[in-house]
């Protein structure tokens, strides 16, 4: 019974939006109703923010109460949470207030720097792992090299002497453009078609309740 209830909760909203798509632009279009439903979904989705907060608090609270390894970091987490929430209450987010200061000079540098570490890692990984071990690896390496040089102004400058010759197509930017727009475009078109068809199949499976993850759980748990 519970499984059926969960499946119906998946199927009805899915069918609603599918029909909305099919009838859009026709006299029986119900775009306005769909917009209202979408708006309500945004509100209901926002209620879920508490779930995330409870999870973070329970994990870090437990770590502090049991003095587990790294408990001091959990105190840092709670302190930052309280500080940022306090700053949010003080002023609005528009120019020159404490929250804007936090976002610009703490949040942004932190997140951006964590992401930038990947620049170091990819360089070292390429050095250690990008080896000419087969024809396929060689092709990949050659194309990567052409694309990197072709997209840099230096690549353009290095082969600019070919511009007015009959070999102008050998200039790095032109080769890179051919590889990226034409060859890569053709390959990714095939991959995108495949991904698209798989996504359609997956959506149908979800709507028909064939994806067991959600409904199975409903059967196994509870009284």
């Amino acid at each position, binding site marked *: 019974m519970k499984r059926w209830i969960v499946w119906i909760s998946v199927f009805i909203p899915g069918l609603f939006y599918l029909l909305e798509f099919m009838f859009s632009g026709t006299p029986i279009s119900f775009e306005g109703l769909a917009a209202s439903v979408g708006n309500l979904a945004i509100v209901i989705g926002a209620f879920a923010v508490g779930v995330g907060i409870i999870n973070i608090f329970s994990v870090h609270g437990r770590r502090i109460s049991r003095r587990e390894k790294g408990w001091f970091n959990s105190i840092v*987490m709670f302190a930052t949470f309280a500080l940022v929430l306090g700053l949010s209450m003080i002023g609005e987010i528009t120019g020159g207030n404490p929250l804007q200061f936090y976002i610009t000079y703490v949040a942004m540098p932190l997140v951006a720097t964590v992401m930038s570490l990947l620049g170091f890692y990819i360089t070292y990984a390429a050095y250690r792992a990008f080896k000419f071990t087969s024809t396929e690896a060689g092709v990949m390496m050659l*194309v990567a090299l052409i694309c990197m040089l072709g997209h840099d102004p230096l690549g353009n400058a290095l082969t600019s002497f070919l511009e007015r010759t009959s070999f102008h197509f050998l200039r790095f930017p032109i080769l890179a453009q051919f590889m990226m727009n034409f060859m890569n475009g053709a390959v990714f078109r095939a991959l995108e078609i495949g991904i698209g068809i798989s996504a359609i199949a997956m959506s149908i499976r979800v709507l028909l309740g064939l994806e067991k993850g959600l409904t199975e759980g409903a059967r196994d748990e509870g009284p």
Partner: protein
Amino acid sequence: MRAHEIDRRAVYLALFIVLIIPFLVRWRFPVYVSPETRAFYEAVERADDGKIVLLMSNWGPGTQGENDPQYRAIVKHLLRSRKRFALISLTDDPIPIAIADKITRDLIEEERKRSSGFKWRYGVEWINLGYKPGPLGTTLQALSADIWKVATRDYTGKEISSFEIMKGLRTMADVRLFITCVAGREALDVIGIVKSRYRELEVVTATMSIVATSLYPYLDSGQLSGMLDGLRGANEYESMLDPNSPPSPRVNALTLGHLFLISLVILGNIGYMRAKGRPSPRVSIPPVRMAGERYIIPTAMGMFLLLFLLDASLNGWRGWERMGMWIGAFFTISVFSFLFGDNVLYKAVEHVIIGGAAALGLYFSVKQVLLPKWWIPMIKGFAGEEGGNWLLVFALIPGAMWYFTYSRRYRWMSKIIAGAFMGMGAGISLGAMISLVIPLVVGTFKPLSNPLNLIYVSVTCVVLSYFVFTFGEGKGRVGKGSRYMARIFMMIGFGALFGNTVATRLSWLIDRIAFLLRPLSG
């Protein structure tokens, strides 16, 4: 030590030094403008029939190395070509809209200084509709039907009906051009959900190089009207806007980064070739370990102190903004300390990120969604005021269902609400995917009179056939040959993807280096 076994820390340090050089020494090479950038530029120029440009900014600090220069170039073009625009962010993260708002206001001020008499009034020529959290598909669907219903208030919290620009912006039919300046593939959602209903709408995207690689087919099929591919795209766009603009140290740093990486790959391969015939020791990447904490923290602090003293001696005290830069530099160096091993400093700042993100998420969910879309209209409804709706009280029931996840007995009830969201996503995705894939399939079959088209179609078909398992494992000469060629073609695609991935990662790193050097450059 062999040529392919240099210590990772030495490589990191060398890369860091290489990327600093262009900020100290300036040079300039002519820029080649790619067709996709030119098409983007022309799409913005074309958007001039009294309609409004919708600019979606869904990028945050993580990808600002590429998205920031792109966003600046786009807004500069919109301002210089006098295109009215509405800014919006469709993400659960409140930071992107704060960044976009600040940059837009700064650029308007810059343009005002650049050309006397320039005016770009908020609410008349441009507006910031704020950020709209929630599932992207649902929000886009609602937005395409009625913009006023999704964006009830602007970024500053005022009713949007009070702004003149909004009188001409009710549905997507009032939008001529949809620009997505994003860190992902949101442009495809816009094409699938919005453009499928409004055929005349043009969609262009500015995104990270790593993502752009997979979007080229949509340019070819005409679903995308133009694209800015990472930092390179931004530089090309800038060169079109202002051919005499000063050389970009970021692009030069990217070039040097590429050259450094290529040199390392060559060195690694030479070492690999030389060691090939010999019994080689086990090649393993050194693990990240809790090592050298004694040295990491003093080194990081020392670097910070050095920056601080250099800045203070060069520029003196210049108020809170400069203080903020020092704080930012401290956090940047703290994160970089992880490169030399896990340490206490990195762990602490990691938890600062978690605490800050949780607090911001909570605050903005309440302020931007629950208060204006639920609480205020509900209270107004109970008070019998105009624009109120007391029925919204019933939203508490599904909203509370999320919390049954903490009850072992009633956990299944939380699956009802999760399932409803899954179903909505599946229903919207089904329609969007059909709209996306059909033009791709139809567009594949180009006229074969052109030999290049024949190659294009063949490559697509061979790669597709690789994944059709009913053809078996490629038996016979034709089957084996086809699978081999498919692998080669895919390697071309993956090579292009790798090249663009490197560009993306290095752009992010260059952005941080530029940030660290900013105090010193004044």
